[in-house]
């Protein structure tokens, strides 16, 4: 088997047994990534760090370009940060490196993680490995496409409303968004702070489990990171899974494309054959999930992105006064989708409208959160397709923001309620990948990953090539 076909955990074991060297591994993936025609990476590492022992020894990682890696460019897919060099490592990167993980490069993304197709990157769109005329999803499109195209075995992304899970589904790989607070956000460039969470993309659940156990856990640099204990996920997932009850929210998935819905039904049948129980659940506020999410995400984004003023770092466009410099820098530095979201976010936070929009959305968020927690008392997991349609063609949705936002219709609820969710590759429809999403209870990645791992092995969803 070629090196690039190996899973992350296999690479580590082979290195430990002396069957392959760290250099051979790095070179094989570097060669593959640097000759890729998919535009997956914005920056590739200049060299390999010294070899280190550890749980991730020698495994190359792709890192979304909004997670800081000391000494490497961190553009966030934006012109405004085109030359920004990260002065420190994000906590998750520090932990990866400490366990022997190797950074191969920084992956392409929608500007400031705002988008579902990667077309909003200032560095050009990423292409889908299954059809280069189609999008890889977003915003972690570079991470998902790189993993699917064997340019890297594991990649990190960020997920504010589905940005890890939706591209994972579009590229036919696994993508986990852990519980909010599970992984420190220190060193992740903020988009919407009450929704953002770092996620993991890989071709096997075992690699996700292994990575999670290394990077999760409390970090004094992020006061919202949780002191909950981090179990040894990569061992736990090997244990028996038992039979689970999965809830299908019919109101939510009713608007889905027919081909996805048919494939989803077949998936439910397979799950039943494996002994799991499928029940219908009611989520009465399902139609409000997406608008609630958009208001909160845009409001928080408009506030977080106020820091890009050309003064301390990033692009600076000169002018006659401080105000002119700031306004011009932001005008030239931000792309259309970022401007759109800043404007809506500014509006919903402005005097006279704050309570009507932002306050209202925060209250509806409470109702949504309670509704989901209630549902998860009755069932072990909520199951839906990850996205309502197949990977679409480049340009198809780019000019219509609401059509683009609909990509996240099944993913945003996990962020609103802070729940962990994983996208599992469901196979192909007309040659294109699709995925289904399993959402679990807060802090219960243990059961979620165990379930996903058993499906990968027993349900015919393995990506072993």
């Amino acid at each position, binding site marked *: 088997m070629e090196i690039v076909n190996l899973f992350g955990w296999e690479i580590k074991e082979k290195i430990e047994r002396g069957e392959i060297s760290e250099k051979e591994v790095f070179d094989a993936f570097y060669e593959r990534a640097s000759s890729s025609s998919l535009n997956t990476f914005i920056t590739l590492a200049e060299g390999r760090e010294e070899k280190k022992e550890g749980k991730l020894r020698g495994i190359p990682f792709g890192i979304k370009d909004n997670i800081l890696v000391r000494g490497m460019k961190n553009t966030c897919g934006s012109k405004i940060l085109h030359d920004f060099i990260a002065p420190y490592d994000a906590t998750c990167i520090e932990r990866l490196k400490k366990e022997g993980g190797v950074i191969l490069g920084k992956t392409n993304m929608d500007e400031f993680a705002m988008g579902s197709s990667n077309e909003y990157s200032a560095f050009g769109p990423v292409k889908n490995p299954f059809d280069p005329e189609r999008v890889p999803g977003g915003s972690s499109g570079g991470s998902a496409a790189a993993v699917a195209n064997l340019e890297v075995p594991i990649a990190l992304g960020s997920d504010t409303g589905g940005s890890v899970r939706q591209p994972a589904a579009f590229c036919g790989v696994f993508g986990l968004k852990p519980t*909010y607070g599970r992984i420190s956000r220190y060193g992740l460039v903020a988009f919407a702070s009450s929704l953002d969470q770092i996620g993991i993309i890989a071709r096997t659940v075992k690699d996700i489990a292994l990575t999670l156990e290394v990077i999760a856990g409390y970090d004094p640099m992020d006061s919202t990171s949780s002191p909950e204990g981090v179990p040894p996920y990569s061992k736990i997932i090997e244990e028996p899974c038992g039979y689970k009850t999965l809830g299908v929210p019919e109101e939510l998935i009713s608007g889905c494309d027919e081909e996805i819905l048919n494939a989803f039904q077949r998936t439910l049948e397979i799950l039943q054959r494996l002994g799991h129980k499928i029940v219908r659940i009611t989520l009465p506020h399902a139609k409000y999930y997406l608008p*609630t999410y958009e208001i909160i995400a845009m409001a928080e984004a408009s506030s977080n992105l*106020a820091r890009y003023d050309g003064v301390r770092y990033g692009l600076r466009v000169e002018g006659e006064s401080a105000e002119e410099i700031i306004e011009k820098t*932001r*005008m030239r530095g931000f792309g*259309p989708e970022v*401007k759109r979201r800043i404007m809506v976010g500014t509006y919903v936070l402005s005097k006279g409208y704050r309570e009507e929009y932002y306050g209202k959305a925060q209250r509806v*968020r*409470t*109702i949504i959160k309670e509704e989901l927690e209630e549902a998860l008392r009755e069932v072990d997991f909520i199951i839906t397709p990850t996205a309502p349609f197949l990977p679409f063609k480049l340009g198809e949705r780019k000019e219509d923001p609401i059509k683009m936002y609909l990509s996240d219709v099944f993913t945003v609820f996990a962020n609103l309620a802070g729940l962990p969710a994983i996208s599992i590759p469901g196979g192909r429809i007309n040659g294109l990948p699709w995925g289904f999403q399993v959402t679990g209870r807060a802090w219960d990645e243990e059961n979620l990953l165990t379930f996903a791992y058993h499906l990968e092995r027993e349900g015919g969803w393995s990506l072993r090539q």
Partner: protein
Amino acid sequence: MIEKLEKLASLRLGEEERKKLLEDVKEILHWVEILKEVDTEGVLPTTHPFLSSLPLREDKPGVSLPDEEIFKNTKGRSGRFFKIRRPGWR
């Protein structure tokens, strides 16, 4: 409306851009109007998925990045200060 937002967001727009963006902003605001149907009387807002207040940490000085690291990314520097033109207070 859009000029006021431009000022609030410190983000100037070009003529063409302004027209398209105004349409989009209106469309998005119209699309989220649906939330008005939800009865939220007596419901408290959620600002964070799990915490009701932000935990504080001990008030102890830590190690900060050295100045040289901090200033590496700036376009204007004067000693230990960032340098920019004076405000015009338009």
